């Protein structure tokens, strides 16, 4: 090998190494960038959900602590009118009933925003309450079975509660099912939530692409921020099954 050739090889080698380093650096940055985007994305979802739940809680407690007593006071004032006139009496009675209706509605709204049972007695009690309310009014029959001692933090409880709510609403709205079974139990270090209906099923990808996939997105976002996994089994005509695995 002539010295020129040697130099050429050396040169090529150096170029190759430099190129290699540059390419490696690029790949490395792309991966890093992707990880950063993913964690940013998760932070964003987490922030959105946290803000949403905090706002709900605030509105619920404002209704309860501020507007409620005001309305009750108005009712007391109206009730203190002592009139012998029949039409006055009717009016007082009617107004009182209307105030009761407003308070009743407020109670409902406040409970939808942030169920009192969820805050005070935890996920299982809140789900049982929600399910028994649905069973009273809907064609869909719900059953739930749970482990007795599920201990998870409040944020996860709220997320799981919203997820079950979402699934129940989806089932009522789209599935044409008569039965929905909900299972909640602990396995190893995971909380497992399984729901199964006997409805008409759906095409998961189509649903996600349509606007109505908002509910499904909500399910996957909440699962994601809890660091969990999920899968759906649904085929037209064969019902829908959701499985979620959430680390405790």
């Amino acid at each position, binding site marked *: 090998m002539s010295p020129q050739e040697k130099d050429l090889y050396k040169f090529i080698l150096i170029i190759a190494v430099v190129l290699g380093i540059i390419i490696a650096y690029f790949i490395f940055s792309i991966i890093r960038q992707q990880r950063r985007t993913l964690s940013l994305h998760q932070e964003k979802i987490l922030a959105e959900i946290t803000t949403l739940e905090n706002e709900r809680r605030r509105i619920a407690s404002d209704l*309860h602590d501020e507007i409620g*007593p005001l309305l009750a006071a108005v009712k007391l004032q109206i009730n203190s009118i002592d009139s012998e006139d029949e039409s006055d009496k009717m009016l007082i009675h009617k107004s009182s009933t209307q105030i*009761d209706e407003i*308070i009743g509605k407020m109670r409902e709204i406040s409970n939808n925003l942030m169920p009192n049972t969820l805050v*005070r007695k935890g996920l299982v009690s809140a789900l049982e*309450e929600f399910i028994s309310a649905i069973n009273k009014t809907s064609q869909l029959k719900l059953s739930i079975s749970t482990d007795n001692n599920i201990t998870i933090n409040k944020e996860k409880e709220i997320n799981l509660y919203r997820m079950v709510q979402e699934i129940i609403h989806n089932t009522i709205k789209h599935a044409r099912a008569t039965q929905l079974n909900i299972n909640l139990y602990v396995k190893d270090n995971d909380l497992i939530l399984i729901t199964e209906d006997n409805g008409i099923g759906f095409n998961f990808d189509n649903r996600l692409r349509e606007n109505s996939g908002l509910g499904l997105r909500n399910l996957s976002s909440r699962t994601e921020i809890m660091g969990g996994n999920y899968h759906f089994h649904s085929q037209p005509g064969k019902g829908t099954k959701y499985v979620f695995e959430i680390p405790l």
Partner: protein
Amino acid sequence: MATLGTIKLIIADDHEIFRDGLKLMLARQDEIELIGEADNGKDLVEMVEKLHPDVVMTDIKMPIMDGIEATRHLTEHFPEVGIIGLSMFNEDNLIIDMLEAGAKGYLLKNADKKEVLEAIKTVYQQDNYYCRQTSAKLAQMIAKSKFNPFTQKVRPEFSEREKEIIALICQEFTNKEIGEKLFLSSRTVEGYRMKILEKMNVKNTVGIVVYAMKHGFYVSPQ
């Protein structure tokens, strides 16, 4: 000074407008004299020590000292004072805490005049009062709680028919529905209901449910 036979009352609530509403309503009642108002539990306790009321109506959620703690203190030091808890909606657990702390009754804040007066008079006579608007769920929670107002030694006897009707009342059936089930007129059922109320010494359906569950006449399905 209170004249003989008037009920001396203190109310506690941190919403002035609500206290004003109550005050206005009670102002026209000769048999009830409002002797003090507090806007937190601590003031309430001090006021009771000074003024010795017969009945206290207190909000549950209040700043500085809440109604539950105040009730606990008052029950210990002034057991003769009848305490009524005042609750907004969605406070079932707080109502249970109030009753376990020693309150003799509770009212929802949107209770009407008749009921407020009935509650005050009932508690004044050392009986218990449950708000009419109590949900079935809350009635069951009360029945399952540590709260047990039934200390009378002589227990009334109930006939089989009465027991049957008690169980149906507990399942939230109306007089008419009970009548249809048992082939009785709804007026006959109403008669039974009055008799049951009297025997149990309670004022309304909620009282029947709590009594029935505490004494094993009715076991809730859950």
